[in-house]
């Protein structure tokens, strides 16, 4: 089984963020770049699947040269091949177009991604790739097992503590829920040796894409602003009975 894992390089800390008003974008001050934690779980699951069923793992990322570091981390964890698309794209839809094009050249049986990225939290990229490549899809998956040669069985979370077991024909794309495996610390020695694995680098042109293909279609970002503190939260005091009464009155007001 050939497994591709999409992993994103994200700022180490996302609490120290500024709005870049000119570019309508977020700017993170963190000096650290790390593999997005949700994607690490996808990577970890890919390793378990490879150990179980054999095959190879291709780790895919998109970004500038500095994002190569997380690909080395992927090799240290157990990826066989690493691919970087040299493009700076923040919009999730554009990112999914680039990644889908790259995945088409890789030709994996199973594509794994995390459920969301720490910096933009959109949960958009996985499902969008699946739709573009016409792959079977499952979200928030907590277990994967092979089911015959051409399909897999997955358990996915439905929310509210309920799960569903679903059979997916291959090729498929699965968004991995956090906690599916325990994250193993990558021994630094392996990380250093991983630098001997050359990443394959692709430009947008290699994928047949032009900047126009990545321009927002059907929507545009009007502005980016931090949430406003409205200070409208009110604390209801008194006995529980009084608080409930006050709450019901408020609800009546809103209605």
């Amino acid at each position, binding site marked *: 089984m050939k497994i591709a894992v999409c992993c994103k390089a994200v700022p180490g*800390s996302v609490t120290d963020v500024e709005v870049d008003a000119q570019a309508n974008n977020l700017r993170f001050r963190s000096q650290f770049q790390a593999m997005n934690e949700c994607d690490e779980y996808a990577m970890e699951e890919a390793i378990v699947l490879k150990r179980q069923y054999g095959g190879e793992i291709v780790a895919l990322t998109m970004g500038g040269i500095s994002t190569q570091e997380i690909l080395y981390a992927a090799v240290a964890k157990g990826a066989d091949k690493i691919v970087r698309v040299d493009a700076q794209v923040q919009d999730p839809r554009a990112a999914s177009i680039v990644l889908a094009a790259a995945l088409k050249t890789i030709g994996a049986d199973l594509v794994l991604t995390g459920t969301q990225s720490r910096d933009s939290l959109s949960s958009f990229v996985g499902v969008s790739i699946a739709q573009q490549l016409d792959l079977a899809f499952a979200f928030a998956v907590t277990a994967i097992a092979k089911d015959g040669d051409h399909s897999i069985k997955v358990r996915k979370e439905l929310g509210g503590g309920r799960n569903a077991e679903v059979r997916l024909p291959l090729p498929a794309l699965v968004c991995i829920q956090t906690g599916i495996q325990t994250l193993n610390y990558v021994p630094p020695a392996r990380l250093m040796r991983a630098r001997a694995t050359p990443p394959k680098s692709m430009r947008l042109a290699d994928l047949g894409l032009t900047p126009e293909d990545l321009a927002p279609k059907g929507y545009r970002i009007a502005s980016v602003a931090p949430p406003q503190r409205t200070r409208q939260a009110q604390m209801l005091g008194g006995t529980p009975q009084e608080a409930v009464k006050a709450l019901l009155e408020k609800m009546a007001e809103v209605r």
Partner: protein
Amino acid sequence: MTATREIYWNISNVWLMYVLFVPAAAAFAYGFYRHIRTWGATLPADRHGRVGERLLGLAKYVFGQARIHGAGRAPTLRHWYAGAFHGLFFFGFIGLFLGTLVVMVHEDFGLHIMQGDFYLWFQSLAVDLCGLFAIVGLTMALARRLFFKPARLENTERDWFNAPVLLIILCTGFTLEGLRFAATNDPYASWSPVGLIASRALAAIVPAEQIRPLHASLWWFHLVTVLGLLAALPYTKLRHVFTAPLNIYFRPLTARGAVLKPLDLETAESFGVSKLEQFSLKSLMDLDACTECGRCQDACPAYASGKPLSPKKIIFDLRDLLHEKRDADGELTAPATVPDLIGEDALWACTTCMACMEACPVFIEHVPKIVDMRRYLVMEEGRFPDSVQQSMRSLESRGHPFPGNTTGRLDWTKGLDVRVLREGESAEYLYWVGCATALNARNHSTARSLVSILNEAGVDFGILGEDEACTGDSARRVGNEFLFQQMARQNIATLESRSVQKIITTCPHCLNSLKNEYADFGTNFEVVHHSQLLADLVASGRFKPQGEEAQSVTFHDPCYLGRYNGVFDEPRDVIAAVPGTSMIEMERHREGSFCCGSGGGRMWMEEPVEQRVSNLRARQALATGAEVVGVGCPFCMMMVEEAVNTEKGSRDVRVRDIAELLRGPVS
């Protein structure tokens, strides 16, 4: 007539002595050759040179026996009984050895020095008394093993060899002298008081006609015993007579805090130590220098708290493996890796407090060995406790080792006048706040007290704010040298972008890394702990202490401030400067201090309540009856305060940083 005596009186066929000497000397030489060969060839670069200092060390620690008796050191490092008996037989045997040399020079080199006053004062009186001292010393040592053995000592068959054999040699020596006096009426017998007493006693019990035959056979017995001991010396722990001075000569001369050396990450083929031969020459020499005194074990907080670590046992286990390897000519049967032999639990129990190394009379280096094995486990295998993995991940992605932390690095500054230095800006001092001070709410008041004192005293300083990252101290201690070097390089770039030259820290761990360890990466910062700067400000009158009301204070020496960096007096000076305070010392203080339990990455490991080092320390602090436990380290603060609150019962005991004590509460 000149005073002297006849050498080889009553002995014929003396040539046989020279013949017997040959195999004994050969066994002796071969024994040491095998030891030296198994130590390997890699003596670390920092152990070469500075010959004068190294020779002075021999004078102090071998001939001065400074670490055996421990006079002038912290109370728990003083051993008057062991110091006395070791001194007695050490100098006793040196005298006897010199006496034997005199005979050799006189007889074999034909240089007739053994006569006249020298014969009477030295060869007779002094050497006689040396023999007596040695007998007294050995008897004291044996009595201790028999009747009041400290728990740190183990009695094995080996321990009943050396002292009894030495006693036999000494007693037969005096018997021989006594027999000669009894037979010859030596006119100078009264210059050898012990020999004289022996002769009187022997004359009373040995019939006159048997004195000569008895003397002759006893002489040969005495000789064979001496030569036997010489041959056996490298094969028993008496080898320390030679290996200990060697080990002392090659001791680290750097600050204690600089003993961990950087790994060359670019060229090394493997990291850390998994096989015995990966240890350095000095590391393996350590193993053969051990005298099995067990003082390291007594000093160890991990051992005291019931964890599966004894520094003594680590040395024993490694030594036994070394000897097995030596005997099998390089082939090892037993376990795959050295860390597995020692056991992961033992390796992770170490707080790197250095109490073992401070206690060792022969400068064995336990902590670097433990870190070397941790380096293998972490760097090559990724085998280390989950909670520490979380910390390392946090260090990598967020620059501090506190997973789940939501405090900002500037939160503690609210309402205070603190300048954050941006790139290109500079100040006389950089206050390096440290993650444990900036991110833990309890320690905010330490930083606030310090800053308000600095402002009042008019000290020009700034901080790095969000650009400060962990120094990498705990990464290095847990063996993650890769991460440590990454943090070090990044921090050095940050510091250089502010042209920093002088640094103040509130955290002794930061102090140690910035001062001792970053120097290996080409920096030359002048780093002081806040206790040092505060003591200065008080002494020069730039800050007038206000402080709290009358109170008794005991001070807990942080390992990384005291043992690592030799700062013992300044925190005490600061406490003494606070109006109304009186100081009470704990039994374990200064270089004998007992760790709080948080060093060496232990901060991030789970510790069952009954095994908490901090609770032991809190009990020691509470036993002084002091109302305040003074600390000088944010990690100690967290550990000791929690433990004091657990252990204090209904008493009112507070834990305060020295800056808080000096400043009083800052709102």
